[in-house]
């Protein structure tokens, strides 16, 4: 990779760029295919490592075993001696529970951010879609055998949206559909994945995170999780959402 900006890629995927650097870098990503591809592969690796790292669980009796060992080694005087420390420890645990709740929300935001990165990487690509067609009856069958689920595409004839095509996307090690639409000069990505309800998914209806310049919307329907991301108005995304919902029979 020859681009001078590539040194910032790790800090970008780790969310360690300052607000100013992030804005500059996102603008750069939109025009640099090499960095967009670099960002995508790093995000992919990060997600894979995150999932693969959660591997070992303690035996069910280990906690009790450790508690017993501590009390045996410390004796009764230990309890009296460490009561103040335990109070602080309890406070620390409470703080961590709060942090876990915050983390769940932050992960939701991070998910939207990562999908926005996929969207940007697609726009920067010379081949943004693998099946190029405005016809939903061509695009939908293309996904047969590539995804472990199926979905309906809306009829767009009387709408301002135009289907450009689609490709298979991978997110958190799961395959999904990535559909690209055009509205006036704006490009909009729709991602469809199986809804696993994990901690990493944002709450349905989550609006644009404050540090993203994109609008986004997410909802679930029929066991599937939909994400719409684009740089157009939220009302436009709402309209696209309604089209998808009516196509799904709701």
């Amino acid at each position, binding site marked *: 990779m020859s681009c001078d900006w590539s040194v910032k890629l790790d800090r970008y995927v*780790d969310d360690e760029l300052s607000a100013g650097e992030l804005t500059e870098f996102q603008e750069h990503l939109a025009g640099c295919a090499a960095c967009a591809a670099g960002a995508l*592969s790093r995000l992919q690796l990060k997600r894979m490592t995150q999932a693969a*790292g959660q591997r070992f669980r*303690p035996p069910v009796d280990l906690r009790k075993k450790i508690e017993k060992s*501590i009390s045996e080694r410390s004796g009764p005087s230990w309890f009296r001696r460490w009561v103040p420390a335990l109070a602080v420890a309890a406070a620390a645990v409470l703080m961590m529970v709060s942090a876990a709740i915050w983390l769940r929300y932050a992960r939701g935001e991070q998910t939207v951010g990562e999908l926005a990165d996929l969207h940007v990487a697609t726009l920067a690509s010379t081949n943004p879609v693998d099946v190029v067609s405005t016809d939903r009856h061509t695009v939908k069958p293309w996904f047969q055998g590539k995804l472990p689920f199926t979905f309906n595409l809306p009829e767009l004839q009387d709408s301002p949206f135009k289907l450009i095509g689609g490709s298979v996307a991978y997110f958190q090690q799961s395959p999904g559909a990535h559909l690209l639409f055009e509205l006036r000069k704006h490009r909009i990505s729709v991602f469809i994945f199986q809804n696993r309800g994990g901690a990493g998914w944002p709450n349905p209806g989550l609006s644009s995170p404050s540090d993203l310049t994109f609008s986004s919307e997410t909802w679930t329907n029929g066991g599937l999780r939909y994400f719409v991301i684009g740089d157009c108005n939220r009302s436009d995304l709402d309209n696209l959402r309604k089209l998808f919902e009516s196509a799904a029979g709701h």
Partner: protein
Amino acid sequence: MFTSLYNLAHWLTQNPQEAEDLLQETYLKALKGFGSFQPGTNFRSWIYRILRNTFLTSRSGLNAKMTEPLDWEEGSSMPIEADTPETLLLARADRQLVQDALERLPVPFREVILLCDMEEMGYQEIAESLGIPIGTVMSRLSRARKTLRELIAVELRRTAK
């Protein structure tokens, strides 16, 4: 926290019994040294640092190679696959393959990746946990990821044969 510490202990020791012993020793030391914990500072970094220091003085820690390998310096990497975009290559890797690659990483690389990507620690928090400057965190992380990508690519090529 308990589950997370056990998971990290297991990744470090690569042995369930040693992971249990390490966790037990960590909790004992943490309670004994609780006075050194300053409320308002990062509790997670503090306890991970105890876990890591305990590991370093354990038998498996002493056997583990804790220095960063010089032969994985920038510029000495193997090409991944000339004709396959990296994103497509990574998409072929499954969880088991990534876990195998993580196991083969030298401990300093493995722990920095796990703290950043799995524990979602920021660079500052990692620096505090490992007791190293933040600049070292960034360079080590970059080299660790590069090595991990290379190990995945090698493994994919091996299984494709």
